[in-house]
């Protein structure tokens, strides 16, 4: 007698009861999910780049090559390279030694070691201090090499400056996260605002019946949290196929990504933007009579 029939689903408004989920909330959830997924991929990419750079930057070397015909300049160049701020040490590898090493690496191909040495340059191996900031380190190395008509291994130079680029990219990613977070908050706020407008009569009635403000607003705050957390959860799940697609490439580079580490940031991030969006949407919901009293 005092039970709700099985076919009836009670939808009592207010308090900790979620309002019905409609198309506006679904669209907001999809948009926020895509934004969070993009951010998740971006930060995972940075994680990969950090691993890649970090794997060789602890003991990073740059090579400078001096033609064998200019051997007389090798001591002057060595001294100049040694004097550059940020260069930890300079090792000189003579062509004969280089030829022996190559012969050791590439076995059984019948190279004449002396003939090979005659074609190899003098090699300067520079160990750098990558953790320290030396504004003109790479420019100074290039200048010193060019003064003696030596060549710098530009591929190594590009890799050496990667950390600087990564720092810049990390800053840009932080800024993009902030901007996208704000945009996601506004999207959820807008979706909830439409729900609030659609339920204006219900809100007005609850206030007329004496409902406390938290009781009126709580369903919408909860809805914002659920939309945000749901979008964050789905965005995290959608990271896995992308990682699976890139697995061969990651394996080749010896990188191991940790998408589990993104679960908490995406869920909490989603909840934060959802909660803030809901708070923004419900900040100023006034019923007609409240407006009368405010302006009176």
């Amino acid at each position, binding site marked *: *007698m*005092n*039970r*709700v*029939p099985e076919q*009836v689903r*009670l*939808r*009592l*408004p*207010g*308090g900790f009861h979620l309002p019905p989920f409609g198309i506006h909330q679904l669209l907001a959830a999809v948009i926020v999910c895509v934004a969070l997924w993009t951010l998740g991929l971006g930060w995972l990419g940075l994680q990969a780049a950090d691993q890649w750079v970090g794997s060789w930057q602890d003991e990073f070397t740059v090579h400078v090559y001096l033609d064998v015909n200019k051997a007389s300049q090798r001591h002057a160049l060595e001294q100049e390279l040694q004097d550059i701020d940020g260069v930890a040490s300079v090792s000189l590898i003579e062509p004969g030694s280089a030829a022996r090493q190559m012969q050791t690496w590439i076995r059984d191909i019948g190279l004449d070691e002396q003939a090979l040495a005659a074609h190899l340059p003098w090699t300067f191996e520079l160990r750098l201090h990558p953790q320290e900031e030396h504004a003109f380190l790479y420019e100074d190395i290039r200048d010193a090499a060019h003064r003696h008509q030596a060549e710098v291994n530009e591929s190594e130079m590009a890799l050496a400056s990667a950390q600087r680029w990564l720092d810049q990219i990390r800053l840009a990613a932080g800024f993009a996260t902030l901007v996208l977070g704000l945009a996601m908050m506004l999207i959820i706020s807008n979706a909830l605002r439409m729900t609030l407008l659609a339920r204006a*009569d*219900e809100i007005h*009635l*609850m*206030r*007329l*019946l*004496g*409902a*406390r403000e938290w*009781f009126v607003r709580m369903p919408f705050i909860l809805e914002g949290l659920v939309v945000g957390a749901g979008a964050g959860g789905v965005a995290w799940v959608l990271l896995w196929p992308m990682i699976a697609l890139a697995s061969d490439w990651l394996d080749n580079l010896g990188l191991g990504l940790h998408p589990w580490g993104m679960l908490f940031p995406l869920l909490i991030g989603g909840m934060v933007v959802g909660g803030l969006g809901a708070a923004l949407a419900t900040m100023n919901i006034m019923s007609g*009579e409240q407006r*009368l*009293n405010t*302006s*009176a």
Partner: protein
Amino acid sequence: MIEAERLMLRYPTGKVALSGVSLRIEPGEFVYLTGESGAGKSSLLRLIYGGVRPTSGSMRVHGLDMRQVKETKVRELRRRIGIVFQDHKLLFSRTVFENVALPLRVQGWTTERLIPRVRKVLEYVGLADRLWAYPEALSGGEQQRVAIARAMTANPPLLLADEPTGNLDIDTARLVLDYLVGLNRQGTTVIMSTHDLHLLESHPARIVQLHAGALVGGAA
């Protein structure tokens, strides 16, 4: 108890809805508010439940000064007042049960506790069999009875009814008034605005008459 002294209400538009109204309503009374359209009946009811604040003069409802009272206190007061609106203000996307349960929900009742109470009040207004129907499936008279059930479900000591019989035929209007009189006999103070003068003859009670925002009879 409701006390008003030289009460004035002016809306932001500049329209003076009530002017110099002094009134006293004791607990347990049944009071008709009468007067032409725009006389200030609905405005007086709004002042009582805190929908608008007096511009000048004084008004006390259940001991609260309605000019100074904070919004949180107004909400508390409303939980002790049942209101029947002329346009019902029923939620058409909710069932009869959900509509009637709303005041109890607002007061924090659990679903298990409010089901028997909602059943009881709907039995009182003769709608026990329409518990799970939607308001749009009900006639105008039935909708008004749902509105009365919602107003009385929390057992408030004061019930305000703003022209509850305005859109009803004479027989249905009498039936609705029977319910209100019945509630009054159980101790509820009922204040009902109306311009159906024939009801005053069939259900006699104290009449407070308003004209152009001023009290012209029944003040004491």
